[in-house]
């Protein structure tokens, strides 16, 4: 009888309370207290709204959950912020994918001469940070006969083209199997119906997983709040494309969707003086891009990774 009573008592005893005051118990209590204190301290900043963030921005939902009224309100807020911070009158739109259109882009490496006008056009069109002359395009100077992109040089500063080199612009390949989308822990980036991989800059937490996942090094991080002179701000802005991005968010080439979804050519294509770039609808059998795919020897970068790019390269 006495044995059973003792066993019952032990069963209902708690790990710390009602324990004899031994060294072990004291250590347990200390550990639990420290742990709780650390957790409390760690999450305490989550309990207040930061000063530089308005309540409406703090409560803003993911892009896909916004109603038309929400968007109107958010775009108005962003427009007034652009006025306040950059002194520019901008208009923010949200063009939707054109039904039935799947975008494709191709570059003729026999024509590209590495002059870099595409990078400059991207910088201006997409309201990039002027401090670092950001651009979504990187032109690699490659040795003829080599496809080793690690040997590609982006800092060449001489007349182009050099006789023993060819030039390979690399930007987002708008993969059909995008690793950057898979790794995003908050679904702040996704692939749209027309094939463009977009980012909700207000949902992105800036963890940079996508930057690490992209085999083409196509993603960029806003280390600083972009600086753009008022007269250089491009006022034609898309919410998912070239609006001025907040510091600490990821961004990437979006095929200038604020232009291309309205039927216009991307800025880098219009700027190319060599005519190396071809853009169009992959679903239209008569499009320029499909003529290239049918008549040229086309390849994609790092095909072996299975990313299935919508971006192609070819030689004449």
């Amino acid at each position, binding site marked *: 009888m006495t044995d059973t009573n003792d066993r019952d008592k032990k069963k209902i005893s708690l790990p710390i309370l009602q324990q004899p005051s031994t060294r072990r118990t004291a250590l347990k209590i200390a550990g639990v207290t420290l742990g709780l204190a650390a957790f409390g*301290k760690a999450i305490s900043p989550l309990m207040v709204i930061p*000063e530089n963030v308005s309540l409406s921005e703090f409560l803003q939902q993911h892009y896909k959950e916004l109603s038309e009224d929400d968007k109107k309100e958010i775009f108005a807020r962003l427009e007034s912020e652009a006025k306040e911070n950059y002194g520019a009158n901008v208009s923010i739109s949200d063009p939707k994918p054109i039904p039935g259109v799947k975008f494709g882009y191709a570059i003729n490496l026999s024509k590209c001469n590495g002059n870099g006008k595409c990078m400059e056009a991207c910088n201006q069109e997409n309201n990039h940070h002027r401090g670092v002359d950001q651009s979504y395009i990187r032109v690699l100077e490659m040795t003829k006969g080599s496809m080793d992109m690690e040997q590609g040089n982006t800092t060449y500063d001489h007349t182009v083209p050099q006789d023993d080199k060819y030039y390979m612009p690399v930007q987002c390949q708008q993969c059909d199997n995008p690793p950057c989308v898979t790794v995003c822990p*908050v679904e702040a980036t996704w692939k749209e119906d027309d094939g463009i991989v977009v980012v909700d800059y207000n949902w992105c937490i*800036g963890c940079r997983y996508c930057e690490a996942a992209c085999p083409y090094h196509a993603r960029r991080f806003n280390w600083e709040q972009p600086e753009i002179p008022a007269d250089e701000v491009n006022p034609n802005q898309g919410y998912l494309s070239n609006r001025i991005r907040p510091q600490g968010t990821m961004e990437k080439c979006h095929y200038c969707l604020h232009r291309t979804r309205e039927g216009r050519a991307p800025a880098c294509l*219009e700027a190319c003086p060599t005519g190396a770039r071809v853009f169009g*609808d992959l679903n239209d059998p008569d499009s320029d891009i499909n003529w290239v795919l049918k008549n040229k020897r086309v390849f994609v970068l790092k095909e072996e990774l299975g990313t299935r790019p919508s971006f192609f390269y070819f030689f004449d």
Partner: protein
Amino acid sequence: MRFSVDISRLIRRVRRRGSVNTSVAFGAAALVVVFAGLAWIFPPPENQNVSGQEDPLPSQLRSESAKLHPVVIRKPTGPPRVLTGQTDAHGNPITVSCSTCHSTRKPNSKTKSTKDLNEFHGSMVFAHGNLSCLSCHNPDDYDTLKLADNTRIEYRDVMTLCAQCHGQQKREFDHGAHGGMTGFWDRSRGPKFKNNCIDCHNPHTPKFPKMQPDFKPKDRFLDKVDH
């Protein structure tokens, strides 16, 4: 999912506050782990925006908007003029049209290079295969050009002349794979604009000129690398 996504937004607010200390980072990391766990246990539904199979066929859509805007190819303006080597009172070079002299002078079909000439054309470099001046210029009317079969052709139609030899380039041009463009890729919405051959290629030295790149993004990861 809803809960975990909200947490992530909270993390983002904290980060943008600008004063991230170690404990915050630790807490955030812990929450990310929790989130990742949740996402693993409750996988999110298939992304609704990934291209679906139920899209209408593009050809069906296109047949409704059969009227396409044109491809506008820039045409050269007027017969070209040649430098006299003299300048006017404002310092602008004086040019004359070719027919000013050539309407009275007898053409020399043997001339293959500007070096053979004593007057004018002296500064002009000629490097276009084995052609001679009269391969393209019309000796009967220097304000026009001529095709290989001696057919007279206006300057504004110079592309027809170029295409006699450069058929491959012309074919690519017609399919948007040569010469670039501006305007609309979707001609149901607006016109496409293209240059003509001699906008980019000097007909006398058609090789595309070398260029000096003047814009370089400053990649952060290149800071410590010396190329």
